[in-house]
């Protein structure tokens, strides 16, 4: 009926707006390791943003409808920036990275494989994620890859509000009664994946040598874990189990059922109308 749709209706963010860097300055190994790291971050933010958006219209109160919609907007904004950066490193297109991959090609952490479930579950999951993200961002603030250090400096100021908001909700739910029971149940089922943001990366040693990343993932997981223990203790919540041992990476043989469903939702427009822009 119509001619080929216009590929772009707006200018892509990356041209010329991202911190400029010369891909040629990076050797091949660093470029690959770096884009691998960025992909884990982008996929985390992207997938979490879409889980957040599942509350738009049905959150338990109007304020949270607004809050979770804002959280989603923030995360997807961060993901967009990171996808643009990967596209610069690898060549290619950020929209294709965001929407054009099959479900098994996403590298979000296992914590984000679970469905939205109930409010306590979404709060507990987000709190676990936000504590990890704060640790991850602080390990990238002084990255030798300046464009990353620059956007991290911006992003972490926004993430501060996310963590603060989840901290308030953790305290509120932990006060007692059914909310506390639901929170405990959520923490129990999420605990095995609590540190999964820090799944080791195949070439993280290279990233550390190159000064891109400040510390190994295992050390960042320790930092997150200590923070979790402190907060759980202050809320008199029992620690759901032994320290989760995260041996696996982020690749999966099979995407989870829940993620496959979410993927179907967020790629729907892209699959129906190739070339549609976000």
């Amino acid at each position, binding site marked *: 009926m119509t001619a080929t749709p216009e590929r772009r209706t707006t200018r892509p963010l990356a041209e010329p*707006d991202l911190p400029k860097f010369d891909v040629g300055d990076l050797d091949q190994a660093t470029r690959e390791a770096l884009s691998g790291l960025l992909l884990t971050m982008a996929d985390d933010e992207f997938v979490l943003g879409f889980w957040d958006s599942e509350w738009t219209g049905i959150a338990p109160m109007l*304020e949270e409808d607004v809050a979770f919609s804002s*959280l989603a907007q923030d995360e997807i904004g961060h993901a967009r920036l990171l996808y643009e950066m990967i596209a610069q490193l690898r060549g290619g297109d950020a929209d294709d990275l965001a929407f054009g991959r099959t479900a098994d090609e996403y590298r979000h952490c296992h914590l984000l494989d679970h469905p939205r479930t109930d409010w306590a579950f979404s709060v507990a999951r987000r709190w676990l994620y936000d504590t990890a993200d704060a640790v991850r961002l602080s390990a990238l603030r002084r990255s030798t890859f300046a464009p990353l250090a620059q956007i991290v400096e*911006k992003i972490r100021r926004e993430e501060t*509000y996310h*963590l603060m908001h989840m901290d308030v909700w953790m305290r509120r739910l932990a006060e007692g009664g059914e909310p506390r029971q639901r929170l405990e149940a959520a923490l129990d089922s999420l605990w095995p994946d609590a540190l999964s943001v820090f799944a080791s990366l195949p070439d993280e040693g290279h990233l550390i040598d190159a000064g891109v990343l400040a510390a190994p993932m295992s050390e960042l997981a320790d930092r997150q874990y200590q923070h979790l223990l402190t907060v759980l203790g202050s809320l008199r919540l029992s620690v759901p189990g032994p320290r989760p041992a995260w041996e696996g990476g982020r690749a999966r043989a099979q995407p989870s059922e829940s993620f496959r469903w979410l993927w179907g939702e967020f790629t729907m427009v892209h699959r129906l109308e190739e070339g549609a822009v976000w």
Partner: protein
Amino acid sequence: MSALRTIDPAGGAPMPLEQAVWAALEDVSDPEIPAISVVDLGVVRRVEVGPGRVLVELLPTFVGCPAVDLMRSAVEERLEGFASDVQAVISFAEPWTSERITPHGHKRLRESGFGPPAPAGRDEERLLPVLPVAPCPYCGSLDTSIENAFGPTLCRAIYHCAACRQPFEQFKTV
């Protein structure tokens, strides 16, 4: 730079191009809070003028701010005719922080019922921030409490003033 041609914006006295660009940018308001200009908001990082060209660097207040593209095109539109090549670009060379809002910007925010951001006393390594106290834009009281860290746009939080019992929006401290 000063050797560049001068122009006569809106029939006023001729002035150097760079100065004229800054003056013109005062007319471009934040699409989400029209009371404040992009200059007072501290979004304009830098103006660079060269023969036949004007480059304006903008710092987004929030990464996911949907008004960024609007701001960029509003800036380019306002500067049309200032040079043959007018470009507004988004930069992350330094983070936009609420401390970039000018004193005049604070005044404009208060006048339109927004609490200006509080000074950020931050401990960079802490995981959790201490929420700054937001003074009420109506009565000036500090007896206010946060209702929601997330308001109608990414950059605004909702507060309530116990003294004059008025809810108000605060431009977030970031």
